[in-house]
C-alpha cells in the first residue's frame, strides 16, 4: 500500500514510522512535506509524533493550519486511512477530525514509560490484527495526553463505539481507583488512549505502536497496528496471537 508520513516542522517520530512501514512491512512509503497540498496518491497517511511547531501554544494547534492538512482531510472524507500517533493524534483533535481535546498530563510532567492497552475494537482497518479485548504493552512519551471531552460527548463516543484503545492494568483490569494514577498516568477521561471517527478510517492514539514493532526491543505488540493499516494483518510478524 502506498503510505505517506507527514513531516511538520518539529515532527520527530517521522523516521520511526517510516522505518516500520518500509523496512519491517515492505511498503512503499514517502514523506509528505507540511507545505505540500497533495497526499500524492497515498492510501494511508500517518501523522507522526513529535513537537510540531514546538507545541508552544497547545499540542497540535499550529500544525492544523499547514497546507497538507486540507489534503489529509480530503483523503479521510474519501475513505482513505489516516493514523495519528501522539502529536498526530493531538493534531487530529485540533483539526476536529476526531472528537475531544487534550490537556496536560495530570502529573503535569512529561511521561515516558510502558503502559497497557486494551483493544476495544478489532474490526477497524487499524486493529484487524488483534483479538477483541487483547491487552498490549506499549510505550507512551508525551506531556499533553489527558484526553477529555464534555460528559455528553463522551457518552456519545462510547455509544458509537469510537473508543479503540483504553489504558488498563497489566492484567487487563480497569485503570481506575487506586490503579488510575499508575496505569492511566495522564489522567484521560474513561482511561481513553485512542479513538476513531464514525467511519472508522481515522484513528488517533497517544501510545507509540512504532516503538514496539520489533522483538529487538523485547516487544512487538504495536506492529499489528501498522500491519493492519496496510492490510497485512495476517502477516506472521504481526502481534496476532
Amino acid at each position, binding site marked *: 500500500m502506498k503510505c505517506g508520513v507527514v513531516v511538520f516542522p518539529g515532527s520527530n517520530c517521522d523516521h520511526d514510522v517510516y522505518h516500520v512501514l518500509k523496512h519491517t512491512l515492505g511498503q512503499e512509503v514517502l514523506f509528505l512535506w507540511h507545505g505540500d497540498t497533495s497526499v500524492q496518491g497515498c492510501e494511508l497517511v500517518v501523522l507522526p509524533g513529535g513537537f510540531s511547531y514546538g507545541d508552544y501554544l497547545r499540542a497540535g494547534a*499550529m500544525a492544523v493550519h499547514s497546507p497538507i492538512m486540507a489534503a489529509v482531510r480530503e483523503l479521510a472524507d474519501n475513505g482513505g486511512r489516516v493514523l495519528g500517533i501522539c502529536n498526530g493524534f493531538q493534531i487530529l483533535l485540533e483539526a476536529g477530525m476526531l472528537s475531544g481535546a487534550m*490537556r*496536560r498530563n*495530570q502529573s503535569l510532567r512529561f511521561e515516558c514509560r510502558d503502559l497497557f492497552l486494551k483493544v476495544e475494537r478489532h474490526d477497524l482497518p487499524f486493529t484487524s490484527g488483534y483479538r477483541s479485548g487483547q491487552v498490549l504493552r506499549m510505550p507512551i512519551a508525551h506531556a499533553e495526553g489527558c484526553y*477529555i*471531552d*464534555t460528559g455528553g460527548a463522551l457518552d456519545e463516543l462510547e455509544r458509537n463505539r469510537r473508543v479503540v484503545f483504553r489504558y488498563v492494568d497489566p492484567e487487563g483490569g480497569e485503570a481506575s481507583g487506586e490503579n488510575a494514577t499508575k496505569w492511566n498516568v495522564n*489522567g484521560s477521561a474513561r482511561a481513553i488512549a485512542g479513538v476513531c471517527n464514525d467511519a472508522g478510517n481515522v484513528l488517533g492514539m497517544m501510545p507509540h505502536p512504532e516503538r514496539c514493532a520489533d522483538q529487538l526491543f523485547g516487544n512487538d505488540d504495536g506492529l499489528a497496528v501498522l500491519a493492519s493499516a496496510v492490510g497485512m494483518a495476517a502477516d506472521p510478524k504481526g502481534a496476532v496471537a
Partner: protein
Amino acid sequence: MTVRARVTVYPRREILDAQGKAIAGALGRLGFDRVLDVRAGKSFEIVLSDNGGSVEEELGQISEQLLANTLIEDYSVELLESESA
C-alpha cells in the same frame, strides 16, 4: 497607528484545571492560607497595525482559530491602548 490588545485564555469552568489545583496546593504549603482558589490560563499580548478594520473582530477570529481551543477553553479580549506610530 498600532493597537495593543490582550487575549486571555482559561480552561472552561467544568474542566479540571490540574495546574491551577497544583498551584493552589503549593501556595497552601508555602503558608498562603488566604488563597481559596487558583485557575491557570494563558495571556497573549498582541500588537496590531490599526488599518481601520475592527480590531475586536479580528482578535476574535485569532482566538477562535488559534489561541483557544473553544471546546475546552474560554477566551476574552481586551484592548489595552492605541499608539500612533
